[in-house]
């Protein structure tokens, strides 16, 4: 019983190491899948346990440090995301992975994620954060050095920010476990309300919040810290990206929630509210809103499948951030709901991309086309994924987006409302571009002998697709779990229905009526005359005969008009800004090195002394 | 450029100002009467001398083949005809509306005024071997045509059906008023055909 959490956390890592050491084709895949399946099984089992008791705890003391782990409803939900999507991704990797190296680091990062979700003190949180980052960094490094460096740099920035924030917190509060910190800060806030001196000053809070925001924002891919994501997501094993984008980015989201849990009341006291939302949350929400728009627009303009979905990931995480930022119970539930659905459909999407890349060896839109005939199973999965991401009822994407809309707009935030409206449309836009370029249209002849998906990938996609449908038709399944987090019925309704008082959504009803509508249309359709299949060259071409030598599909620059409309804004690039800063820093470092690292031992001693003095003055 | 002697319009006269409001004036005809001519119910006025179908006064025609020579479309063929067993003294133009451009130069050059035209212009037919024979005819007498035109007043071709027997070269016109008009084609060209041998191998020239 006690070891359950440890098993959940460490099984992936251990199996990963075994797989790496064994390095026997076939066996290593089996072991790795087992390594992903075991935590999932334990998590499912834990659901039973959690109904009877509020949480499962475990702590371990290693050389004086006490590592605490806690599994309660919130972390269970996140761990389940990691479990399901991780399992699917590992299944997918069974088809796409070439060597055991990848297994080690992929499973290592899974362990990291589990650790983050289950950690109950800041030290273990940080350590697993680093494990996760290291694992994913190695995965990217294997494919693209430059992308991995960018990822590494920003991760390091995030890690140091977090470390600094933890340090400050520890210095002020004197504890690292979540419970103590939470209670201390709550009391601090109460003290503030009563008018006595607070433990932390306003600037401290601002600093801690800012540092945490950077730390988690980097991982979540929040604007303007998103620049690593498109490269890192696209330059790695695409099956792994299902986990990378579906689960690892959730660590950032989870981190934002941790801010709420630990600092929420204190921050709220310090900075107050705007309307119903806390001011600090407003920052998150607005950054999230901008993330939606920037990610979405950039996704529409990409020429590479992997890049498109990378930006799409960024955009979707923006939704979650908006939900978290608004900060009402409903919106946080909506955000977690969207985190679940994002993991489901984006995991599915990256598995699809993995299939395409595996089978065609191509990643650019201009080399694709007409694959729907050649890969019907994958296309069926894509269809589900598209409908889900685009937020088409009755799939899970719509249910979560709907909740988010209502939650945000209900809090009287018109601008955020407009932003997410725009975001959902841009989802349509880039998905259809993807569909058009990859699945429809004229098929280049070099793709004529493309095979359909391999079985492990198909199973992995099947699991995710099924969940997409099930959670969409029966949104209540998720809602009941979400309600448990707050311990009260925020989202009412039955298993089929979400009822939040000022709006209702019934997945089953929509399914029934959609099917009815399609059946009516189908009747009309089948009463008509028979259809004849025609090839792509037998279409309207202004009356001219064409052959396959002509390019009849818009393969490149599909959204050129959009690009032109946005030309002014596209010139502003944070990526380039960071590069510039990087160059300046390099320049500065070069200059400094010549002066500071002058090889004089005495000088080094002086530096050390000065640093120690500064630390002492600060009161550490 | 050299100096310009002619008047050049000032730019201010040519250029216009864009407006969002003025287009709304475009709705002003919404409740006015349409300018449409409702064709099956209304008739259009056809100009007095509209260049329509040909008429031929068989008596006046001297068979000079001016019309055949001027025709830009080679639509006119001089044809030797036999009406009621009696051969016409002169060849008459047979006009092919699968060629005719209705320029009516043939009428202009006709020295005796036998070939005329009338305002009627509607000739519609199914595209089938026996029905498009309508497009190839020796024009009927102007008075007859005029009478038919006035009685029906719908600018249609006066003949409803032309039967043409390819073996015997017999032609039967079924006029719109039920009248039947028969003749026989003996041959083509300016020279009279050689004496009957079935009437098929009457090579001109």
């Amino acid at each position, binding site marked *: 019983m006690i070891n359950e959490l440890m098993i959940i956390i460490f099984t992936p890592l251990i199996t990963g190491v075994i797989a790496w050491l064994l390095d026997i084709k076939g066996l290593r895949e089996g072991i790795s899948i087992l390594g992903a399946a075991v935590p999932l099984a334990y998590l499912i089992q834990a659901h039973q346990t959690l109904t009877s008791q509020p949480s499962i705890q475990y702590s371990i003391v290693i050389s004086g440090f006490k590592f605490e782990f806690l599994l309660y409803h919130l972390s269970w939900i996140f761990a389940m995301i990691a479990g399901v999507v991780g399992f699917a991704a590992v299944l997918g990797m069974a088809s796409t992975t070439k060597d055991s190296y990848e297994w080690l680091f992929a499973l290592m990062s899974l362990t990291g994620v589990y650790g983050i979700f289950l950690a109950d003190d800041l030290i273990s949180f940080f350590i697993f954060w680093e494990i996760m980052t290291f694992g994913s960094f190695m995965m990217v490094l294997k494919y693209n050095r430059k992308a991995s460096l960018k990822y590494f740099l920003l991760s390091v920035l995030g890690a140091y920010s977090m470390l600094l924030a933890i340090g400050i917190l520890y210095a002020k509060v004197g504890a690292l476990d979540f419970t103590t910190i939470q209670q201390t800060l709550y009391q601090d806030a109460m003290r503030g309300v009563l008018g006595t001196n607070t433990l932390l000053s306003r600037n401290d809070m601002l600093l801690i919040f800012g540092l945490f925001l950077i730390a988690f924002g980097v991982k979540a891919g929040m604007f303007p810290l998103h620049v690593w994501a498109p490269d890192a997501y696209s330059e790695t094993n695409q099956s792994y990206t299902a986990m990378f984008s579906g689960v690892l980015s959730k660590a950032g989201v989870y981190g934002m929630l941790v801010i709420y849990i630990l600092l929420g009341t204190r921050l709220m006291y310090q900075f107050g509210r705007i*309307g119903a939302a806390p001011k600090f949350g407003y920052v998150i929400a607005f950054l999230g809103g901008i993330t939606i728009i920037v990610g979405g627009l950039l996704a529409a303009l990409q020429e590479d499948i992997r890049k498109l979905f990378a930006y799409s990931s960024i955009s979707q995480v923006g939704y979650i951030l908006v939900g978290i930022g608004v900060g009402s119970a409903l919106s946080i539930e909506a955000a977690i709901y969207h985190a679940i659905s994002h993991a489901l459909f984006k995991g599915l999407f990256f598995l699809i991309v993995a299939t395409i890349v595996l089978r065609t060896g191509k990643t650019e839109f201009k080399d694709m086309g007409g694959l*729907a*005939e050649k890969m019907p199973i994958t296309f069926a999965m894509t269809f589900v994924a598209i409908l889900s991401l685009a937020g*088409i*009822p009755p799939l899970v994407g*719509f249910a979560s987006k*709907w909740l988010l809309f*209502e939650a945000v*707009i209900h809090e*009287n935030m*018109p601008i955020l*409302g*407009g932003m997410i*409206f*725009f975001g959902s*449309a*841009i989802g*349509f*836009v880039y998905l*259809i571009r993807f*569909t058009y370029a990859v699945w*429809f*249209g004229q098929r280049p002849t070099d793709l004529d002998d493309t095979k359909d998906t391999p079985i492990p990938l198909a199973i992995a996609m099947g699991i995710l697709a099924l969940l997409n449908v099930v959670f969409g038709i029966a949104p209540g399944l998720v809602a009941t779990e979400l309600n448990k987090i707050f311990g009260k019925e925020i989202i009412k309704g039955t298993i089929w229905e979400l009822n939040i008082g*000022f*709006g*209702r*959504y019934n997945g089953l*009803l*929509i399914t029934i*009526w*959609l099917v*009815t*509508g*399609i*059946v*009516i*249309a189908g009747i*009309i*359709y089948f*009463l*008509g*005359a028979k259809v004849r299949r*025609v090839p792509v060259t037998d*279409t*309207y*071409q202004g009356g001219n005969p064409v052959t396959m030598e002509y390019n009849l599909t*818009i393969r490149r620059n599909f*959204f050129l*008009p*959009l690009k032109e*409309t946005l030309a002014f804004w596209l010139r502003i690039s944070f990526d380039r800004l960071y590069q510039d800063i990087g160059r300046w820093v390099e320049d500065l470092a070069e200059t400094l090195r010549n002066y500071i690292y002058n090889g004089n031992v005495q000088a080094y001693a002086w530096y050390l002394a000065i640093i120690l003095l500064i630390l002492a003055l600060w009161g550490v | 450029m050299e100096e310009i002697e002619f008047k050049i319009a000032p730019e201010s006269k040519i250029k216009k100002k864009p407006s969002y409001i003025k*287009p*709304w004036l*475009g*709705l002003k*005809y*919404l*409740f006015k009467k*349409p300018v*449409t001519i409702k064709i099956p119910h209304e008739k259009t006025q056809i100009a007095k001398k509209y260049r329509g179908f040909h008429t031929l006064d068989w008596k006046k025609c001297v068979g000079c083949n001016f019309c055949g020579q001027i025709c830009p479309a080679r639509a006119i063929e001089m044809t030797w005809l036999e009406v009621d067993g009696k051969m016409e003294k002169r060849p008459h133009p047979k006009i092919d509306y699968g060629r005719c451009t209705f320029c009516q130069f043939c009428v202009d050059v006709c020295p005796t005024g036998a070939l005329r035209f009338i305002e009627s212009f509607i000739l519609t037919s199914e595209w089938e071997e026996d029905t498009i024979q309508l497009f190839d005819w020796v024009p009927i007498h102007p008075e007859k045509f005029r009478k038919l035109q006035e009685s029906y007043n719908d600018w249609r071709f006066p003949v409803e059906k032309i039967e043409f027997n390819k073996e015997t070269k017999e032609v039967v016109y079924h006029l719109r008023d039920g009248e039947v008009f028969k003749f026989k084609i003996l041959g083509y060209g300016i020279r009279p055909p050689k004496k009957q041998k079935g009437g098929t191998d009457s090579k001109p020239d």
Partner: protein
Amino acid sequence: MITSMIGIALKAFLILLYATFVGFMFMGIIRIVTARIHRRVGPPIYQPILDTIKLLSKKSNITHGLIYDFGVLYALGATILALMFIPLGSISILRAYGDLILITFLLEIPMLGIMFAAMSSGNPWAGLGSQRALLTLLAVQVPLGFAIVALAEFYDTFSTYQIVMAQQTAGWSITYLPLLLAAVAYDIVLQAMFGKEPFDIMIAPGEISLGPMVEFGGKHMGILQIQHAIALFAETLFFSNIFLGGAVVTAFASSILNTLASLGILLIKQLAVLLIAIFIGAIFPRFTIDQAARFYWKWPTIIAAAGAILAAL
């Protein structure tokens, strides 16, 4: 249980029939009124029905694959679905679930089906048309979103039916400044939803030969015509409901009379919405797609955002 289900089915069928019929009449009215502005007679009002029957009775049809067929069916199915959620006087069956966001989405997703079908044909013209359609959708979304947000915040509910009921006591939405602004923006958006000039960029016959529709013929096009009719009905109905007060007549003793009266009132409101669209369509040329996007992101967005912010205050 079973009788109630049969009742619901019957009611749904009647609504569907009514909507289809009125939608076709609307299409006819569009053509006639446009013709009158053109100073001509125009076709009979039932012409769209004839067109549809003709298209459905074509003896040979083509397909470009399963998605080509399914997209068309999906478009019609989704439109029927959307229709069911919009309050239609007092007789709508799913109006309790008629959520603003849901309906807004449902009114857009038929487009997705059409795009899917069109794109699966692989025709570059259809690709161009889809590109334009999608960007129009994107452009429209901003003012549309703000307009919806304004409504939701003003009434503090997302239920269309509740909004209609609120208007029965408090007066039409457009009598309040924030919602008037939202209505103006929404009406401009509606112009694009109807596919009328200056925003008929998606089909633009003179430019891209009907764009996405270029490959549809026969029964596919017939189904799309039905879809268009229902969508026309649904869109005007939605606008009348949320901005023009809808119609819930309770003056008569007989419920049938009440229903008929409210249908009549709704019809008049829908026609008014339609006529504005026709008028604008008749007198303005077409924008290009980038101009349309810039336009929508400028004036309608400002108007709608002002409405939304005013409503939120």
